[in-house]
């Protein structure tokens, strides 16, 4: 479902002083990852470890310098449109919604952009609003929503076209701990469990990563340095500390 093989990416950063050479910042240095059907994998790493770059490459928003990646067998660099049709993207950025439009209008707009046939669009939007408990807020502009409602709307938007793959980049950034727990349970039990979607969720919240219930991929300096199921948050924290200090006590 999700496949990344030896992905490499280095960003050129323009210097503040125009007469100096820009810096080259490596973001991915041979990242390799596989997420199968119905699996929910948490991607954890410190800030700047390469989580967002990996997700952006998988969602075709950034082109890799080297390596290959595919979503549902569709190469993200060679067939980006086909890859995008097979995936839903959730970011933690509430601004990715149109705040002056209502929840229903947002879903209808993105449904059309995801090529949902016009006669199916209305019932699907109504179902999505009901599934995510947004019926009573359907006609309210998104600017009046709470962070929790916006988060639910972003998830509803990502699932509207029934993608087989869901990519999430710190979706709980603005949520309180209770909402975070509910959100993770929903992703684990409903989206990966009942709906059999493949989920890759990037986070730096270790509790969230373990609660997702599947494998955890640890990314450090642009490489996946661990892939497996830690027994708990304490073990995962210990693992990550080891990789950060350059003295890992366990590798997959």
């Amino acid at each position, binding site marked *: 479902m999700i496949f990344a093989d030896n992905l490499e990416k280095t960003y050129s950063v323009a210097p503040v002083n125009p007469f100096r050479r820009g810096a080259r910042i490596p973001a991915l240095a041979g990242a390799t990852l596989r997420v199968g059907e119905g699996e929910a994998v948490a991607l954890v790493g410190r800030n700047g470890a390469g989580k967002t770059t990996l997700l952006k490459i998988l969602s075709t*928003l950034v082109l890799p310098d080297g390596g290959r990646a595919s979503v549902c067998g569709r190469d993200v660099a060679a067939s980006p449109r086909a890859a995008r049709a097979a995936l839903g993207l959730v970011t933690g*950025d509430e601004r990715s*919604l149109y705040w002056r439009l209502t929840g229903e209008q947002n879903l*209808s707009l*993105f449904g059309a952009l995801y090529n949902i046939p016009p006669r199916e669009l209305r019932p699907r939007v109504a179902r999505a609003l009901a599934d995510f408990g947004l019926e009573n807020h359907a006609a309210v502009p998104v600017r009046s929503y709470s962070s929790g409602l916006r988060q639910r709307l972003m998830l509803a938007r990502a699932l509207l076209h029934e993608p087989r793959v869901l990519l999430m980049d710190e979706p709980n950034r603005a949520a309180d701990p209770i909402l975070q727990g509910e959100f993770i349970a929903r992703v684990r039990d409903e989206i990966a469990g009942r709906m059999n979607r493949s989920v890759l969720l990037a986070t730096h919240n270790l509790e969230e990563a373990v609660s997702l219930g599947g494998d955890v991929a640890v990314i450090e300096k642009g490489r996946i340095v661990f892939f497996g199921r830690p027994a708990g948050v304490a073990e995962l924290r210990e693992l990550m500390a080891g990789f950060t200090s350059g003295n890992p006590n366990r590798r997959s």
Partner: protein
Amino acid sequence: MLFRKDFLDQISYRFSFFLEAGGIAFYTLTFYFIAEMFGGGVPNLERYGGDYFSFVLVGLAFSSFLNISLDTFSTAVRDEQMQGTLEALLATPTSPAAFFLARLLWNFVHSGLHVIGYFILGIVFLSASYSRANASAVPLIVILSLLAFNGLGMISAGFIIAFKRGNPLNILLGFASAFLGGVYFPVEMFPEVLRKAAALVPVTYSLRLMRDACINGAGFRELAPDFIVLAAMCAVLVPCGALFFNWALRRAKRDGSLTHY
């Protein structure tokens, strides 16, 4: 659906409707009184019947319409970047060209209403007269002009995507359409050097065609030379614009700066 989104977005800013209507009235009245000051027989305007108000009203209405084509793509890119919605849009299977074209469609309707506003005010309430107009030529002039400006608009949007700011095209063409293109005065007044410069910008041909058709009632045979030049400009600008826009998009995806502004 994108058209509907832009419409809904626009009407959510109710006060701006009144500001826009007020702006049209203010502009039209300003040039009406300037025309009144000159009187009816303005030298240099013999070609257009000598009436400055009828002359400048075409320039005002049509240039604002054309500038929309120039600005739409770059403004759309900038708006989506600033709002934070660009990545969400680009993560859908719809091509970027499709949603920017949809934005263009709404802007045409929106600016078309401005044009109608200018002409209603000028013809019904003031003294503009287009009794000899060759209305059948107007759609072709509009289509060719919009195509030429869309080509430039795509290049302009490419600058925003690739370099974020400092879009030289909008500055240059804004100046060119207002000054060189002859919005406020006829290009024929210019010295030789400026006349040659004016011949390089599409708005010169668009406005001359529109005035010849609307004020002088010129037929297709008389309009043909300017039509040919404008069509040639379209043939060059539209593919160049599309190529440059795609290059800029790939560049931004390569350096990861799609959402930077």
